[in-house]
């Protein structure tokens, strides 16, 4: 019995506790990201944003959540029932699963696996299935067009994202996310790899279907894209998944380029602040840029989007891999395998 307790039940329970400890803050972060987005866009537009429910409108996300929860879930008669219901679940689960490998502080990570960055990349490349399945199963033209656009867009931008990740990995010499952060102890990668950081950030905008690349939803032409047939809880799952994905991409940018949990300079007032706080601040900074971009830029035309992905970003990132590798070899800077 003691062996069963020590070997099975307690470790399982501990992992479940850790999972809950990650998922609940992420969900809260998602809820208040919608509030943050509306407030920031309100400020940029010289409006007030939500200010009715609770002080400063702080309870607005909760009111929205309850509204979505209490409404009726409608499944269209001509929809492919099984796939229609699985699609939002896939989007939502994938957005949460990726958090398993994100390091919040030194050693503060659920699964410290050797191939962490590949795991993240794999999970983010799976995100396209939720959208494709939703678009197909809805059996509606608008939804299907939105899904096709979104799938093509995500696949295109993944290629250059992969190459940019390789340039970072060349400077680290490990695929472990904690190693990637620790390699930035002296200088964040955003400084030596600045162009790559910018391209990576723009690619994450396209990968999460955010403005100015939000063609899948393009409300003016496609009503709302792949999720037009979804209502209530199924819609809420898409929405949560999408925003959790945004936070995840912001987290990925912070880990790869902004030094994860590391303080900007390692001196007294800064290294008193605990690592997770720095990490959260960096994520919030990236998300602010996400929203700022949304309020500033007009939507891309679809052929221009494809051109940017394949004819601009792909050659630049491919060249960057060769250049970074060349510099590292020429000046004998290749990281020591460890």
């Amino acid at each position, binding site marked *: 019995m003691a*062996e*069963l307790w020590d*070997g*099975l039940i307690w470790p399982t329970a501990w992992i479940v506790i850790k999972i809950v400890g990650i998922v609940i803050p992420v969900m809260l972060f998602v809820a208040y990201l919608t509030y943050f987005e509306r407030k920031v866009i309100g400020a940029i537009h010289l409006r007030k944003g939500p200010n009715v429910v609770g002080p400063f409108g702080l309870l607005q996300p909760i009111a929205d959540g309850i509204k979505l929860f209490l409404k009726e879930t409608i499944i269209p008669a001509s929809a*492919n029932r099984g*796939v229609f219901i699985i699609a939002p679940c896939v989007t939502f689960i994938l957005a949460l699963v990726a958090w398993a490998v994100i390091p919040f502080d030194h050693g503060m990570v659920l699964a410290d*696996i*050797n*191939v962490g960055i*590949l*795991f993240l*990349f*794999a999970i983010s*490349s*799976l995100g*396209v*299935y939720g959208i*494709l*399945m939703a678009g*197909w199963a809805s059996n509606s033209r608008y939804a*299907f067009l939105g899904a*096709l656009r979104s*799938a*093509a867009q995500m*696949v295109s931008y*993944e290629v250059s994202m*992969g190459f940019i990740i390789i340039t970072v990995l060349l400077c680290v010499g490990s*695929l472990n996310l904690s190693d990637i952060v620790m390699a930035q102890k002296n200088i964040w990668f955003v400084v030596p790899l600045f162009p790559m950081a910018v391209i990576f950030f723009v690619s994450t905008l396209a990968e999460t279907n955010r403005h100015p690349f939000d063609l899948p939803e393009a409300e003016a032409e496609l009503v709302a894209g792949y999720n037009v047939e979804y209502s209530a809880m199924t819609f809420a799952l898409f929405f949560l998944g999408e925003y959790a994905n945004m936070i995840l991409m912001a987290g990925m940018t912070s880990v790869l380029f902004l030094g994860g949990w590391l303080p900007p300079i390692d001196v007294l007032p800064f290294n008193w602040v605990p690592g997770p706080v720095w990490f959260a601040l960096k994520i919030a900074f990236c998300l602010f840029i996400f929203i700022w971009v949304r309020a500033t830029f007009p939507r891309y035309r679809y*052929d*221009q989007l494809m*051109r940017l992905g394949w004819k601009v970003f792909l050659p630049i990132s491919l060249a960057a891999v060769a250049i970074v590798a060349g510099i590292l070899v020429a000046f004998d800077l290749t990281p020591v*395998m460890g």
Partner: protein
Amino acid sequence: MGTIGTLLQALAFYMFAFVAVASAVMVISARNPVHSVLFLILAFFNSAGLFVLMGAEFLAMILVVVYVGAVAVLFMFVVMMLDINFVELRQGFLQYLPIGGLIGLVLLAELLVILGGWAFAPEATGSVAAPTPDATTNTHALGELIYTHYVYLFQSAGMVLLVAMIGAIILTHRNRAGVRRQSISKQLARRAEKTVEVRKVPTGKGI
């Protein structure tokens, strides 16, 4: 670890293996082609799980990135867009059964040979060309093999793929007349002096 650890590992193995085989069967028996592709993805996923159990985490992730993230998306695209008549496809089933069964038998025989060799002479795995070093992670070991020992083979494989890619582009690309293309460099090179002209238009005359 201990007995419970091995038990859990065995449970995980049987779960992944069972779901992989079951979804592979569903791939060929599902009525709807899109469902077939979805089951194929499930099969890939469970094979990745099996790779993780074997300690080959790099291969597992690459399997997901390449097959699930890229190849299956293209399958999905094609299958969703095509108007496939599956009753018609099914008519050829008996016709192709012998050759399909033959290929299956050959694969089974080869697997049996490998398994048999492993069972009769377990020490044979030690004499392979490049045994896996103990201390390195399998990402390092694979990199060592592909980019150091077999770099020429790797390069020529890349060339073959490049030729195939160029061939596919040449076969499908056609320059249609009457399509208005956007040339960004031309647009950026335009200057206001060359394109816009300010004229004084007398009232009631026009240009």
